[in-house]
C-alpha cells in the first residue's frame, strides 16, 4: 500500500471514530445511555456462567461488559465508535488486496452496523461478535499449512458458534472465499448452517432466533435485517478483494470513498429517531432525578408525548414550579400528570418515579415491575433495581432491599451506592438513618387499605395529604389533577390560597379566576391574592373568547394559560 493511501486510510478511520463518537455522545447520547439502563452487568461468576451458557454467550458477555460503561454517554460513544473502527480495521486486514478501493469498501459493514446501533434496541454484543469473528478469520489465515488450516476451520466452526453465535456463518464464508476450493467451501458453509439446527435440539429457542443470533438484537420479534446485511457486505468485500475487479483504478477508489460516505449520512439518519431520543432523554433524566436538567431541556425542546410531559411535570413540581409554569407547556389531560399502563409512550421507570415521589410506593413498585417486563431481552435493569431497593427500604422490607442492593453491589457504577446501604442494613437502626427514606416512610399510606382506582386518583392523593399534610408533591399533584380534569370547583376547595407566603402560582390563580367567573361572582370582588395583571389578562381573554377570535390567535395570546387549556384542549 502506498503511503498516501495509508494516510487516507488512517484519516478516514479517524474521521469515522470522531464522527461516531460525537454522534453517539451528543446527538444520540440518550440512546447510548439507555442501553446501559436496559441491563445489569454483574461481575460475578454466576452471571458469567449464565450469560455464556447459550450460543453466542461469550460475545454477549463481552458486549454487556462494555455496555456497563454507557452509564455516561461519552465513554459509551467512544466504545461504540472504537468497535466500529476496529471492525473496519480487522476487515481491512482480512482482505487480501490492500488497495484503496478495498480500503473504502471495508467501511461499508461498519456503517451498516452503525445504522443498527441507531435503532431502538441494538446490542453491543453484535459488534463484539463481529470483531471476534474477524479475529478468528485472521487467526486461521495465519496457519500456513492448508490441511491444518482447513481442519482448524472445521473444528472452530462449532466452537465459534457457541462463543459468538450465528456470525460463524460469516467466518465460514470468508474462509471459504479465501480458500478457493469449492468442496471445502460447501462443507464449511454447511457446517456453519448446521450449527443452529443442532443447537435447536439442545437449547430451548426457536430456530429463527438461533439462526439470527440470540443476542444480536434485544427484540425477538420482527428483528431488523441490517446486522445480516452488514455480514453479507463484509463477505462481499472479502470476495471483491479476492478478485481483480476495480483494482488499481485511480478513479474507482475516490468514487468508492465518496459513495460510502455520501450514503452513510442519510443511512444513519434514516435509522435514527430523534423522537425516541427525546423520550429517552426525559426518561433517563427523570430516573436520575435531574429535575433542573429536565426543565432546561423542556425550554429548549418542548415535550411531545404523554410520558415526556409527565416527566416535565414531575420536574416542575420538584423544583417548585408546577403551579407557576405547567401550562406554558402542552398539557393533554391528567395522563400527562400521572400516566397509567394504558398511556401511550409512557415509561415504566419514570412512571414509578412519579409515584415514588408522591409517596405512593406501592404503585411505584408496580411500575418498576412493568419497567422490568418491558425489557425486550428480559435482562435486569440497574436503575429499576435501584428504585426497587429504595422502595423496599421505605417499606421496611429489609430482606428484599438487601437482595436488590447485593445485586447492585456486583456492578461497577452502582456498587458504591449499594454498599453504603448494605452497610446500614447490618445495624438494626441503620436503615432508619437516611432521611430520604424516613421522609418517604412518613409520606406513604398508613390508614385503611384500599384498591387504587386511577380514575379516582384524587381520592388517593387526598388521603396522602390527610395522613401527611406536609407532602407538597401530593398537594401540587392534587391541584394539577383537578385543573387537568377541569374540576375547578374541587381545585378551589383544595387549594390553600391563604397559606402561600409569596405570590400564589400563576396556574393556581388562573384556575381560581376561571372558577370565580363561572360561579358568577363579580370580577371586582376578586380576592387580593389574584394579581391585577392576571385579572386584567383574564378580562381580555373573556373578551376575545366571546368575540370568537380564531384559535391560532388565541393560542398565541393565551397559550400559556389554564384558560386556554380549559376551553380548547
Amino acid at each position, binding site marked *: 500500500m502506498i503511503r498516501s493511501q495509508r494516510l487516507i486510510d488512517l484519516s478516514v478511520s479517524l474521521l469515522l471514530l470522531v464522527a461516531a463518537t460525537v454522534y453517539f455522545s451528543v446527538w444520540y447520547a440518550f440512546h447510548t445511555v439507555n442501553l446501559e439502563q436496559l441491563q445489569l452487568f454483574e461481575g460475578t461468576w*454466576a452471571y458469567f456462567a449464565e450469560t455464556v451458557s447459550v450460543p453466542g454467550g461469550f460475545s454477549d458477555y463481552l458486549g454487556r461488559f462494555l455496555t456497563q460503561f454507557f452509564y455516561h454517554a461519552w465513554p459509551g460513544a467512544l466504545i461504540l465508535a472504537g468497535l466500529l473502527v476496529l471492525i473496519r480495521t480487522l476487515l481491512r486486514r482480512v482482505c487480501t488486496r490492500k488497495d484503496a478501493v478495498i480500503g473504502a469498501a471495508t467501511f461499508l459493514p461498519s456503517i451498516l452496523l452503525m445504522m443498527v446501533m441507531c435503532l431502538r434496541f441494538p446490542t453491543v454484543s453484535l459488534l463484539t461478535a463481529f470483531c471476534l469473528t474477524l479475529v478468528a478469520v485472521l487467526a486461521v489465515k495465519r496457519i500456513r499449512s492448508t490441511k491444518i488450516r482447513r481442519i482448524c476451520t472445521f473444528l472452530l466452526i462449532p466452537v465459534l458458534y457457541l462463543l459468538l453465535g450465528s456470525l460463524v456463518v460469516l467466518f465460514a464464508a470468508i474462509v471459504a472465499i479465501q480458500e478457493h476450493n469449492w468442496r471445502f467451501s460447501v462443507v464449511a458453509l454447511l457446517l456453519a448452517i448446521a450449527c443452529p439446527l443442532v443447537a*435447536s435440539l439442545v437449547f*430451548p*429457542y*426457536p*430456530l429463527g*432466533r438461533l439462526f439470527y443470533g440470540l443476542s444480536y438484537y434485544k427484540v*425477538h*420479534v420482527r428483528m431488523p435485517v441490517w446486522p445480516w446485511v452488514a455480514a453479507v457486505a463484509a463477505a462481499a468485500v472479502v470476495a471483491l478483494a479476492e478478485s481483480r475487479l476495480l483494482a488499481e483504478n485511480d478513479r474507482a477508489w475516490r468514487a468508492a470513498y465518496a459513495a460510502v460516505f455520501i450514503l452513510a449520512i442519510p443511512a444513519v439518519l434514516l435509522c435514527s429517531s430523534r423522537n425516541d431520543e427525546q423520550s429517552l432523554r426525559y426518561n433517563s433524566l427523570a430516573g436520575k432525578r435531574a429535575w433542573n436538567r429536565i426543565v432546561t431541556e423542556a425550554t429548549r425542546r418542548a415535550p411531545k408525548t404523554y410520558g415526556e410531559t409527565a416527566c416535565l411535570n414531575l420536574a416542575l413540581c420538584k423544583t417548585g414550579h408546577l403551579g407557576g409554569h405547567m401550562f406554558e407547556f402542552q398539557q393533554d389531560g391528567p395522563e400527562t400528570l400521572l400516566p397509567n*399502563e394504558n398511556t401511550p409512550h409512557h415509561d415504566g421507570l419514570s412512571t414509578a418515579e412519579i409515584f415514588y415521589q408522591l409517596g*405512593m*410506593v*406501592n*404503585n411505584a*413498585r*408496580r411500575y418498576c*415491575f*412493568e419497567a*422490568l*417486563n*418491558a*425489557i425486550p431481552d*428480559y435482562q*435486569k435493569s440497574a436503575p429499576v433495581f435501584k428504585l426497587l431497593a429504595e422502595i423496599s427500604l*421505605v*417499606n*421496611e*422490607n429489609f*430482606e*428484599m432491599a*438487601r*437482595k436488590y442492593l*447485593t*445485586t447492585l453491589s456486583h456492578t461497577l457504577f452502582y456498587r458504591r451506592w449499594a454498599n453504603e446501604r448494605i452497610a446500614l442494613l447490618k445495624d438494626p437502626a441503620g436503615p432508619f438513618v437516611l432521611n430520604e427514606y424516613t421522609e418517604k416512610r412518613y409520606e*406513604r*399510606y*398508613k390508614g385503611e*387499605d*384500599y*384498591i*387504587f*382506582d386511577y380514575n379516582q386518583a384524587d381520592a*388517593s392523593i387526598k*388521603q396522602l395529604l390527610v395522613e401527611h399534610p406536609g407532602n407538597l408533591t401530593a398537594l401540587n399533584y392534587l391541584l394539577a389533577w383537578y385543573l387537568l380534569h377541569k374540576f375547578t370547583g374541587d381545585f378551589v376547595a383544595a387549594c390553600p390560597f391563604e397559606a402561600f407566603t409569596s405570590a400564589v402560582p400563576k396556574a393556581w390563580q388562573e384556575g381560581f379566576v376561571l372558577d370565580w367567573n363561572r360561579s358568577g361572582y363579580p370580577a371586582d370582588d376578586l380576592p387580593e391574592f389574584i394579581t391585577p395583571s392576571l385579572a386584567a389578562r383574564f378580562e381580555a381573554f373573556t373578551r376575545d373568547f366571546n368575540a370568537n377570535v380564531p384559535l391560532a390567535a388565541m393560542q398565541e395570546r393565551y397559550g400559556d394559560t389554564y384558560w386556554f387549556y380549559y376551553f380548547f384542549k
Partner: protein
Amino acid sequence: MRARIPLLMLVLLTALSCGRGLHDPVFSGREPRIFPDYRDVTIPATIAPLNFSMDQAERLDVTLTGDDGTILHVHGSMARFPRKAWRKLLQANVGGAIQVDAYGFTEGQWMQHRPFHFYVSEDAIDYGLAYRLILPSYEGMGKLGIYERDLSSYRQKELISTEEVNGCLNCHSFNQCDPKDLNLHVRGSYGGTLIQQQAQLKAFDTKTDSTISSCVYPYWHPSGNYIAYSNNTTRQGFYQRAENVLEVFDYASDIVVYDIRNNRLLSCPLLKSESAWETFPAFSPDGKSLYFCSAAPKAIPQQMNEIRYNLCRIAFDPESGRFGDRVDTLVLAAPAGFSVSFPRPSFDGKYLMYTVSSFGNFTIWHRDSDLCLLDLTTGASWNLASANSPDAADSYHNWSSNSRWFVFGSRRDDGTHTRAYICHIDADGVPGKPFLLPQRKPREYYDNMLRSFNIPEFVTEPVPLNSHKAWRLLRRGKKEQFNYGTDIP
C-alpha cells in the same frame, strides 16, 4: 534446594490450614441460624444435598453423623456436601436420623452450636418438580417459563418459556404427577390450551359461546378421560399500603369438565349457578367426586373483603359424564370468617389439603393464607401449623404420587417471592417441618433468583414436552375448538 521447595510448600499449606481449621470453639448454647432453615427437617433419601450457609459466619465446619455411625465432614465458607457421600449417608440412614454438628467462624472465633438433625424418611419421593418461574409482577410477564427440576440433583431444565413462545404460560397440570398427561395454557395472540396424551400434543381453543371465558385451573380425572376446568372472569386491583400488594378477584366463575374422548364440555346447573361463584375444581382420586370452592357473589370491589369460598363436593359418574344432583359442603368457611381455595385431595383418598385466608381466592397475595388438612373419612379439619409460616403466604400445594410428601409455595423467605417448600406428611396426617428446595449455593441462588416458583407440581418422570412442536402448533393456528354440550353420545 529444589527438593526442599515441595516440603516447604507442604509445611506452609499445613500451617495455613491449621490456622483456618476448627480450634478452640466456644459453645453458643443455641442452634445455628442457617439458610435455608434445614434444622430438624424430614427429607427423602434421594434428595439432593441440603447445602446451607450460616448467618454472619465466615467459615463453617460441619459434621454429619448418621445413626449407623457414617460420618460426613465438610469445611468451607458454606456447608457443601459431596453428592455421592451425601447419597451414601442418606441411604444408610433411611428411617433414622442424621445429627448435624455445625461450627461457625465469626469475628475471629469458632462458635459451636447445638446440634440439629435431618430425619431421613422411609417414604420415597417422586423424580422431580415442575413449576413456573415468573417475576412477581402484575401486568406484564417478562421472562417466564415452565421448568423441571430433578430432586436428586440441582439440575433444572427449561420446558417452555417466553423465549420461545410469544405469550403468557400458565396452569401446567399433570395427571396425578404423571407428566405423560399434560395440560398447559398459553395466552396471547397465539394463545391456546395444549393437551398432551400418549405423546400426542394437541392445541385447543377452550372458549365457547356457552362459557364466560377460556378454561383455566385444570385438574385431570384419574382415568385421563376428563379434565375439570373453571371459567373465570378475573380482574386485579392494587392496594395502597405496603403490606399488601394486590388483589385478584373474580366477577363470575363456573366449573366445566372437558370430555377428551368426545371433545365436549360438560357441566350442570349446580356448577354454573347464577347465585354462586364456583372455582378450583379437583377430582377425587377414585374419580367419582368433584371438589370445588363456591362463594356467594358480592359487589366488587366494595364487598371484596366479604367474599368467602366454601369447600364443596358433587358426585361425578365417569362412565356417563353426569354430575350428581346435590352439592355437599365439606368446609363451611363463610360463616366462620375465612375462605377456602385450592382443594387438593391426596391420591390415597385419605385427606384433602386446602388453603385458607380471610377472604377471596387468590391466596398467594394474602399474607394470612395457611395450609389446612381435611380428613375425608372423619370430616375433621386442622391447620398444618408446623408447615405454615406465621406472617407470609403459604399457598398453592400439590401431593406427591404416594401422598407422603407435598410441595407448596411460600413467601416466608423475603415476603415477595414464592419459593417451593417440600414437606413430609405421615399416614396420620402429621406433617414434618418443610424444607426449601435445595440448591448448590442456596444463598447465592435465592438472592439472585428474583422470580417466583409458581404452581409447583411433583412429576414421576421427566416431562415429555417438545416446546418447538408446541409453538409450531400454536403459531400455525391448528387449534381444535372445545364444544359445549351436556348430551353424551
